[in-house]
């Protein structure tokens, strides 16, 4: 099982900052590495 992705969330309107794990839905929506990933060639 991979390590959880923990990200920080800041809302400029409320000034609130929270840190939490990404939900399964958010993880599923992450970009996938492809042949045109931004890794310098």
């Amino acid at each position, binding site marked *: 099982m*991979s*390590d959880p*992705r*923990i*990200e*920080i*969330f*800041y*809302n*400029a*309107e*409320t000034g609130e*900052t929270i*840190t939490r794990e*990404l939900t399964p839905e*958010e993880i599923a*929506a992450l*970009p996938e*590495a*492809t042949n*045109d*990933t*931004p*890794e*310098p*060639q």
Partner: protein
Amino acid sequence: MAIKTFTTGEVLTASDTNTYLANSGLVYVGSITFTGQTGANLDSVFTGTYRNYLIVADLTTSAAETVIYQLRAGGVTNTGLNVQAVQQYFQWGTAGAFYNQLTNQNYAYFGYGNTNGFGSAMWVYGPQLAKYTYTQLQGSAITFPSNSVAKHEVNTQYDGIRIASFGTSTITGSVTVYGHRIV
């Protein structure tokens, strides 16, 4: 007139403040400083108050890693494959430039980091307007300094941005958003 030179003893009035300071160009919108996160999400930073924005970041990644950005709307990261991007990057000590390209993705380049850090400054053009959003980035880094541009081919009105490592590295540093005031 957006500039005035005040003389000794002259009174700074409310009108002066509203006229000359409010027309100051870049206006602070929000900022976060964080340690050891795989991504940083900034919401409600793009509003109807400003048309264009400047994002300034000073970041370090826990390992050599590409850092990307994705636009967000209503607290949700864009998943549509509507982003086209081109990156021109350099290698210290090597003449000439190199190129990368992204086609139909949901992210674009934000920088290339490692434990020595990197800095990126990115203009975001019209994210709150119901039209395509364009970005233009300049980044300096220990490994691959770069320039890049991206277009978001969708009319979504974005209000936030996610900056994240492309892999599993964590990011430490700060991100600040400024609005560009139009008089």
